[in-house]
């Protein structure tokens, strides 16, 4: 009996290891859609509060992976009040340049977890989107589920890094195309946000979600980011953009 139990335990460990590896492969495939040497993106963002749309914020974003460090620069082009305001991220550091005053300031280290421009996305959410959503997490379980009639892998993620933005997340990835459909984020015992990825379009052989909606599960609010244009490995992205001096030179 004892031998049988040890064998059962051993087999279940093997099964879990195999499942975990499978989950990792699935996550890597799903994340590969978002990863590139560099990305240039033009997008608009609208915050809906109690069903009412707020101001449309339009921005140009530049992403670059440089020696294992994620670099990003987002420059607002509209609305008029914040046109020219820009956010620069170098690894864990975040700067903002206010177009209204021309001044640049470094944001506090905790600011990455904060709401980006009053939206339901945090700066970290936006950054993770271009590193792959599971970059900071590892799979703890994998099952199957159906979302909007599509067969999906349902993968529970737990943080693999220190100081995670969320305690856990559940992501739904389509079985046939490895597209993220939905990611549910949990913190302090509550489901706090849900990200829905939609409108996948082929960009240079990669299916990229052109509409990403973040629903707050804590208030009647959602933020929709629509990608109007995206280029992977774009010539528009230059390394010099990702410096404080360039940020300060922006007009």
């Amino acid at each position, binding site marked *: 009996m004892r031998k049988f139990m040890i064998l059962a335990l051993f087999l279940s460990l093997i099964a879990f290891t195999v499942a975990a590896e499978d989950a990792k492969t699935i996550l890597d495939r799903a994340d590969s859609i978002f990863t590139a040497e560099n990305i240039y993106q033009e997008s608009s963002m609208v915050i809906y509060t109690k069903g009412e749309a707020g101001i449309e914020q339009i921005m140009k974003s530049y992403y670059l992976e440089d020696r294992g460090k994620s670099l990003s620069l987002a420059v607002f082009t509209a*609305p008029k009040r914040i046109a020219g305001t820009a956010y620069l991220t170098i690894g864990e550091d975040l700067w903002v340049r206010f177009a*209204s005053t021309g001044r640049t300031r470094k944001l506090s280290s905790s600011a990455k977890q904060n709401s980006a421009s009053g939206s339901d996305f945090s700066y970290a959410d936006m950054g993770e989107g271009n590193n792959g959503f599971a970059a900071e997490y590892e799979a703890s379980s994998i099952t199957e589920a159906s979302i909007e009639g599509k067969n999906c892998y349902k993968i529970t993620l737990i943080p693999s890094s220190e100081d995670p933005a969320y305690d856990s997340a559940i992501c739904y990835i389509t079985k046939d195309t490895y597209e993220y459909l939905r990611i549910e984020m949990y913190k*302090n015992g*509550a489901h706090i946000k849900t990200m829905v990825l939609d409108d996948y379009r082929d960009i240079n052989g990669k299916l990229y979600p052109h509409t990403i909606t973040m629903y707050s599960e804590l208030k009647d609010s959602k933020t929709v980011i629509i990608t109007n244009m995206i280029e992977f490995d774009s010539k528009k992205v230059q390394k010099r953009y990702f410096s404080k001096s360039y940020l300060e030179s922006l007009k």
Partner: protein
Amino acid sequence: MIRKELLLQRWAAWSAISYKRAFLIVALITLILGIGYSRLQLEMTFYSMMPKSSAAVQDYETINEEFPFASQIIVAVGTDGNATTEQVKKTIDALQVEFSLPEHSEVIESVYSKVDRDFLQSHGLMLTEADDLQRFTDSYSNLNLVPLLRNINDEFEREYTQDADNLEDHEQMAVSQFKALNELLILVNRAAEGNAIETFEVKKTLEDYLFGESYMLSEAENMGIMFLLPTFTMNDFMELERVVEIEEIAKEIASEQGVTVGLTGIIVVGKDEMVTSEQGLGISMVLAFILIMVLMILAFRMNSAPILAGLPLIIGIIWTTGAAGLFIGRLNIITAMYLIALMGLGIDYAIHIFSTYIQSRDEGMDWLNGIIYAYKTSGSGIITGGLTTAAAFGALAFSKTDILSELGIVAGLGILCEMTAMLLLIPPLLGRRHHRLEKKGKPDTIHTRKVQIRSSLTGSIGSFVKAHPGTIATGFLIIGITLSIFAPGVTIEDNLMKMEAKGLESVELQDLLVDEFGMAPDGMSILGTDLAEFERLQEELKELETVASVDSITSYLPSDKKQRIRATLIEEFREILELRPDSAEYIDMWELYEEVFRLEMNLIEMGDMAYLGNMERLSPVLNEITGIDDEGNRYRDTIFDRLATTLETDEANQALVDLQRQVDSTMALLLKNMADPQQITQDMLPDMFSDTFISRDGDKYLLTINAKENPWVGENREAFSSQIQSVTDRATGMIQVADQLTYMATTDGLRSSIIALLVVGIILLLDFRNLKLTLLTYIPLLFSFGSLFGIMALTGIKFDFVNIISVPLLIGIGIDDAVHINHRYRIEGKGNMDRVIAKTGTAVLLTTITTIIGFGSFIPSIMRAMRSTGVVLSVAMALAFIYSIFLHPAILLIAHERFGASLRPWGSKEVQK
């Protein structure tokens, strides 16, 4: 059985002749039960139904009883959003004066309309965290204009421009600070122009900067709130009506100021529940009684029906009320509703007695023999039926939940009381009627009347069912199964406030307060005695995303250890303040200009962040100060534009130097007052804090947690509760308790339904003595429930803890129709299903209509929980009737006549008719 029938016949004969004595007996019973009536309390609030065995409920009751602030009445001033800030403040002041008068002391214990600035002015630094105290010391080490502004700018850049979330979290304080800074700059400008500044102006500006707004104002400052602490608590149900007089006074005073006012808080909601449920019950009772009496007059063509049937009906209700008083001592919303539904059930006994009585008169019997015959033929059946229904209802008395067991007791007693009242009173009433007619020399009109409900409809149904049993069974099975497929979609109402009357001011204000103040009035609390634990909990809870604020006495009475550490830092600060540089006679105008310009930049950047972050309160204030509109355009000159001119000078004038001296001395005085190193003790706390956080006996403490979103909304509550649960499992509050009530009503309702099904099954088995027939009798009932749930899912009607606990009752009532058909089928025999339906259909229809009237009378109620109960139960009864009259006979016919299933009782031989 024979003894029972004989006894009934003897009673009928004796009481019809000696009706006065019979009335006396009834009066005596009424008098005895009147003792119970005098003990009876009407507890018509949801709060009164909370499961008393739950630890959360017990804690919540203790909190209500021992912490005055838990019973707070929130007075919201300027609820229509049209008042000016000045009007709001004036009204709040007027209400403060009025409710503080001794004439209101019987009702109102305390009135709180402003933040206690005196306490903050004296002990502000002792309430400041050690880390912040260090920064505070740095910020105010030099109170000359330039270093003061420099330190303010440093603070802004550290706190706000680096972190928009900080700005949002401290929005209210930030608004006060920015407005006060604007005022300070105006004083600087006036001084720079050579004008002398009065010291009181400087003092007011600096006080506003340091302590913020003392009124509790909304984001747009067009609404304000204040708190009244009543002399009674939520546990004093009889006192809740007194809220009405408070409301009237508040509305009158507000109206004098041209402002609207509304009251909310758990006590006000409780009062509104009482008022609306009592109104609803009153309307339902009158409506049910009138409709039932109209039906009786139409059915029996008797104008005397309201007396002959109505009087025993009312007496039965009175007895039930008295019995409830004796056994339970109270009626809650659900048991009070049942009393009205009881009219629809109790009248059925009168229908049975009158039907037989009139039948006997038609057959030529005189009135007395008619009564005796009616009791002989129907009396025994009535008693058996009544006892079994009472037993089925009474089984609920063993439920775990108080509300369900109380319902079981009242429902069981109600059936017994109604049945007894009908059996005791109808013969003497008929006797009295006959006596009066005789005395007046009038003929007895009943002799010529017949039950006028046409049996042609049920006759046609009977013929149809007999001719097409297969089609009907298939058709109804398809309908039933199709509807049942949707049944899992039925949901449970998770927002207690949606069970209240629609448009209730106290409920609507809860949402308004969330919108306007960013904080829900109903939250959770933790009861405890360990302040160190509270400090830890407070730290952890305030980090939660769903939590707007966490407060406990430790916010105002820090631990001895903390106070000792802070006292040292405060002493150091006082020293630094004493040793600060003297107020300089010289001001470096260029540096002053630099800091003013830097301040402008900071405010513009914060304005951008407030605009992007949709901070509705802060954004317009910063736009106003910086003169930049939402488009980013400069739309007006600001104090910064004026200062750019007035400060463009090499040397400060005397007025500016004087202002610098005033700012230095006034600020120093304010800071010195705040920097009191004396340890704060419990007796030094303002009443508002002790009323909120310390129990009346001083032994217990309270930690309060307010939610960012309205926690009555299910999903908000789930997130709020889950996050709090991740820190502690000891939080309680009305929202938590209401969740437990719904959960227990659901689980206990399900358990009680199973018990009711079993009890009914046993009764049916004993009655029919045939397992197949018993099982077949369940089919229409189960299909009724499946269809009901399906219809509810399709139409969006939800279960709630009021209507869900009535489900077990439906089992006892809904199965009746099929039982009557079974009995008649056994009498009529094979091949006579058409006669069965024709004969029983009319009576079944009549009793179903009366039951639907009983339940349906809740539909016009303004309280949504009562309305939904009326709809659910009426639809259920209608479905039970339809399945019983169509599906059940068809299945019986197929089973018995086509497949030869035996329906005869055990040990008997089938008799072919």
